């Protein structure tokens, strides 16, 4: 049995010994490098571009500008193709642009033999602009008469709403207490260690091969075809090991360009390797949200209504656009399913870097606003914030109020109870003075969240698995789902081992996805893979097992129905200790007997048509140094209900990483923009403050294991969720410590100073 065990990651040795190959580790003779010429204004139009001097520089192969590219507008979001026109992603990109929409927009590209020539060549291109006023904030881009960033858009890319339960105004009117609030979140960036990188080449006159650090090879193949106007079958995308993505690689960034360049250069290999500075402004960021909330509560602690109105800023290009605000509303709905909820969201274009998918896809923004106002509601009616949540959060037996689907598993109440005990909530609150006055003050905070295990029913959820019995009785598994550092390959091996009845170390997983041969799967996003892939892997393993037993029946003469596989051997079903024949002998017979058998394989493509909600919470105990405007986290716990925990150590790893990113979003990270020019000040790791190992405290993590019957092994999403609740828990604890509500992220010393000053603390 492999599920639930902390087996050794199958890529651990390759990665820690440096043997694992990433995109930049592959070398091709004669490979050329390419680099974008990025705009030095945030909004405007190129009136003149002269590339002749750059073109003449020795070592420069070619220079292409917006005049040289195919005029196929394409969408870059890593979503499945949609058969419904109204759900199609917005096609607002060309390979290069004349119309500049953010500081760093791509107006030309140079191909040269090395980086130094590239740098020099870029400086030799003369560009003249007609400049427009940069529209950096939603307020600016929504002003009457503001210039359209994309023609015909009105600077609004999408708007949607839903309402569940009682009419929201009636519900609010009926509540004992009504509160209002406004909460803002920042633009931040994924900061995956491996920057965006891709290269392309042609081995013949027809097919373009693109090797890319991508979360979504099969989607990338389609979008490259769309961008270049080529049949999709002519494109082949290969995904080797990748050094993190967090959603920034759930988008097509460099792939169409390198494909275009190799096509133009007679199939010569061309590589683009973004610098950190480019990666931070020229790929994707998290959507800043401005959320207006209203809530109604009764004095007995019943949450009556939540009215959520979100304004999401997608920046210069659509990318995932309004999908993020839409999904955020959908995923947070499961948290308080018995309240009347109205959710309205609008997404706007501005002249800032394009926002796309980032870990938890809008949920951190919405849950921050929700957890803030929930805290205020609890305080207003004089109820303990944990008690208030316990009374109102989702429990087993609740339904998604919009879809009507029953929650098949839900352990949130147990999560809250466990977290409360771990942090010593009641003891600490009882022990401390009523009012704190010193320079350093202590506070406790809590926040909770709901999330989902995929994108269904907004998108279709497909996963493919192919499992092969090798000649020696070992197993090879190939899936379309992608390993991006989260441990998917190991999980897949555990699943196959579990269902087939073979030892974990006899299962090999093909880590590379090559769209020419890998089963179809849309890739790593939405915390979907372990959930949806489980349904494909489980079915493929079950089918292969049946085939193996059928052949074993032929080999042994024992009827197949009486046999089973245990620990890699064929055994009597009623006596597993009694080995009948080894898997190796059955495999050798299947492959090499002259008359019977064949290669035993199973391949399943499965569409999951459920979407299990997943839950959890954060408890934090912190200290605020008021005069220094600094927060010092003493203890933090994340407790999750993610169904069955497939691999406890890797699950903890996900939680540790997510909580660290949540602390970063709560207290540290923000892309700072000059509101006059749209220039980003801090596109580097000196000035973009990722907390270091000494800034992040020891992170406590526990799981409340439930069983989710809609997945192959009882598991639910865990990849993204840990990032969601730390920021509001920290905010609530700062409030508890100082009496000051901070309703904007990040809560850096600069932010705290402003609010402490306003509150008279300084």
């Amino acid at each position, binding site marked *: 049995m492999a599920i639930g065990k902390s087996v050794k990651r199958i890529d651990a040795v390759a990665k820690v010994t440096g043997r694992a190959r990433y995109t930049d580790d592959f070398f091709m003779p004669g490979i050329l490098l390419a680099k974008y010429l990025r705009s030095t204004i945030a909004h405007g139009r190129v009136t003149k571009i002269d590339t002749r001097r750059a073109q003449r520089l020795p070592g420069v192969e070619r220079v292409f500008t917006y005049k040289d590219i195919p005029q196929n507008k394409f969408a870059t979001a890593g979503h499945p193709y949609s058969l419904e026109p109204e759900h199609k992603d917005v096609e607002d990109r060309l390979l290069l642009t004349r119309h500049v929409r953010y500081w760093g927009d791509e107006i030309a590209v140079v191909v040269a033999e*090395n980086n130094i020539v590239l*740098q020099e060549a870029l400086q030799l291109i003369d560009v003249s602009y007609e400049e427009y006023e940069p529209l950096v904030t939603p307020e600016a881009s929504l002003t009457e008469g503001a210039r359209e960033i994309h023609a015909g858009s009105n600077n609004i890319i999408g708007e949607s709403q839903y309402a569940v339960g009682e009419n929201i105004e009636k519900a609010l009117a009926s509540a004992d207490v009504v509160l209002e609030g406004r909460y803002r979140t920042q633009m931040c960036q994924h900061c995956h260690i491996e920057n965006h990188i891709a290269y392309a080449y042609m081995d013949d006159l027809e097919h373009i091969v693109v090797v890319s650090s991508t979360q979504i090879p099969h989607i990338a193949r389609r979008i490259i075809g769309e961008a270049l106007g080529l049949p999709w079958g002519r494109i082949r995308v290969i995904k080797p090991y990748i050094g993190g993505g967090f959603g920034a690689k759930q988008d097509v960034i460099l792939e169409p360009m390198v494909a275009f360049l190799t096509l133009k250069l007679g199939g010569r290999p061309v590589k683009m390797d973004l610098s950190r500075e480019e990666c931070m402004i020229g790929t994707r960021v998290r959507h800043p949200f401005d959320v207006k909330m209203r809530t109604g509560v009764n004095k007995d602690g019943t949450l009556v209504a939540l009215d959520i109105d979100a304004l999401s800023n997608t920046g210069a290009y659509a990318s995932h656009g309004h999908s993020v605000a839409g999904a955020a509303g959908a995923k947070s709905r499961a948290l308080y399913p018995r309240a009347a909820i109205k959710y309205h969201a609008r997404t706007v274009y501005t002249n800032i870097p394009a926002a796309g998918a980032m870990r938890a896809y809008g949920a951190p923004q919405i849950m921050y606003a929700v957890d803030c106002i929930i805290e205020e509601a609890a305080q207003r009616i004089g109820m303990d914030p944990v008690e208030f949540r316990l009374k109102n959060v989702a429990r087993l037996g609740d339904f998604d109020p919009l879809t009507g689907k029953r929650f098949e598993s839900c352990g949130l109440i147990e999560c809250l109870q466990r977290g409360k005990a771990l942090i010593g909530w009641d003891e600490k609150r009882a022990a401390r003075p009523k009012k704190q006055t010193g320079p350093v003050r202590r506070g406790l905070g809590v926040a909770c969240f709901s999330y989902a295990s995929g994108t269904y029913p907004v998108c279709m959820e497909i996963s493919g698995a192919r499992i092969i019995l090798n000649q020696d009785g070992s197993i090879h598994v190939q899936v379309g789902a992608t390993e991006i550092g989260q441990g998917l390959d190991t999980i897949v091996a555990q699943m196959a081992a579990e269902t087939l009845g073979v030892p974990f170390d006899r299962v090999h997983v093909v880590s590379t996805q090559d769209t020419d041969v890998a089963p179809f799967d849309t890739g790593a996003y939405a915390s979907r893979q372990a959930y949806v892939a489980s349904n494909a892997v489980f079915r493929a393993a079950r089918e292969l097992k049946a085939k193996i037993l059928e052949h074993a029946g032929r080999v042994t003469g024992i009827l197949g129905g009486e046999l089973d596989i245990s620990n890699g051997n064929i055994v009597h079903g009623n006596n597993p200790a009694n080995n009948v024949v080894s898997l190796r002998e059955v495999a050798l017979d299947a492959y090499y007997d002259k008359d019977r058998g064949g290669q035993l394989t199973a391949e399943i493509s499965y569409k999951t048509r459920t979407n299990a909600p997943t839950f959890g919470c954060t408890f934090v105990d912190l200290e605020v140094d008021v*005069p220094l405007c600094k927060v010092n986290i003493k203890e933090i716990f994340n407790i999750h209900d993610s169904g069955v925990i497939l691999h406890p150590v890797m699950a903890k790893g996900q939680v540790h990483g997510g909580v660290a990113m949540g602390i970063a979003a709560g207290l*540290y990270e923000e892309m700072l923009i*000059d509101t006059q020019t749209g220039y980003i000040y801090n596109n580097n790791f000196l000035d973009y*403050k990722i907390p*270091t190992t000494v800034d992040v405290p020891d992170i406590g993590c526990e799981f409340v294991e439930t069983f989710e019957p809609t997945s192959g092994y009882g598991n639910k999403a865990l990849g993204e969720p840990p990032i969601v609740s730390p920021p509001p828990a920290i905010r609530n604890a700062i409030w508890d410590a100082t009496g000051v509500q901070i309703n904007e992220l990040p809560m850096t010393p600069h932010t705290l*100073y402003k609010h402490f000053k306003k509150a008279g603390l300084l």
Partner: protein
Amino acid sequence: MFNIKTYKEAGSVKEAIKLLQENPQARLIAGGTDVLVKLHKGKGQFHHLIDIHNIAELDFINLNDGEDLVIGPGTCFSRVEESPLIRKHIPVLSEAICTIGGPQVRNMATIGGNLCNGVPSADSATPLIALNAVLTIEGADGLRQMPLEDFFLGPSRVALKQHEILTAITVTRDNYTGFHGHFYKYAMRNAMDIATIGCSAVCKVEDSVLKDLRLAFGTAAPVPIRCKDTENKVRGRRLSQNLLDVITESVVDDVNPRTSWRAAKDFRLQIITTLAQRVVKKAILNAGGTIH
């Protein structure tokens, strides 16, 4: 890949001076932790490099005949931080240095490079100006000495001519004997960061009297500075909470922080006044004083 047009390695101070004279465009590189960052950003003035990081005569820490503490500017931060002489006589410098970058940076970066780079946030500058450090500079015109405090001319500007090299950093015996200090770096995170405000206090306490105080701030003005007016006001006064309050109040007139996108002036003042109080208090406690 760095765009380096010429690169020469100097084996001695004399040779480095000669190479500098031969190529007026040339700049020195020691540990490279500032120069290579500038080259990475495409700054043109660092295309011609003279490497001095292997010059043995710049890499030392010792006491001279007069028991003055002399530090070779080519000594990397890790060695300065761990030096028994430094820890014994001027531990405040070790305190400051261990906040610089991470271990890898401190293994490469040199103390002289930190001073000659001339940024207002240089973490080794405030303890050294509080200790009245003196620099020895050698060039085509010979040797000269100057107080470190006068070395800083403005942001990234220091009193070093194109053909000159810093060859020694000296803290004289009378500037460390009987003195105790404390350093605090205020930054957005607790490692791998640039100081929002750096503060060093060095003091001498006798019989509950503050015999001497030197208070220095980084990033509180265009260059690292000493708070001379405040020092003069409190020298010789009895230790008390009131004395600390006087320092907090007075320091505002000594500093001149500016608003930048990294931090606003009023925020910097908040940190400066808080640190003045806390860092001086800790320095006094380290000196065996008590505050009632």
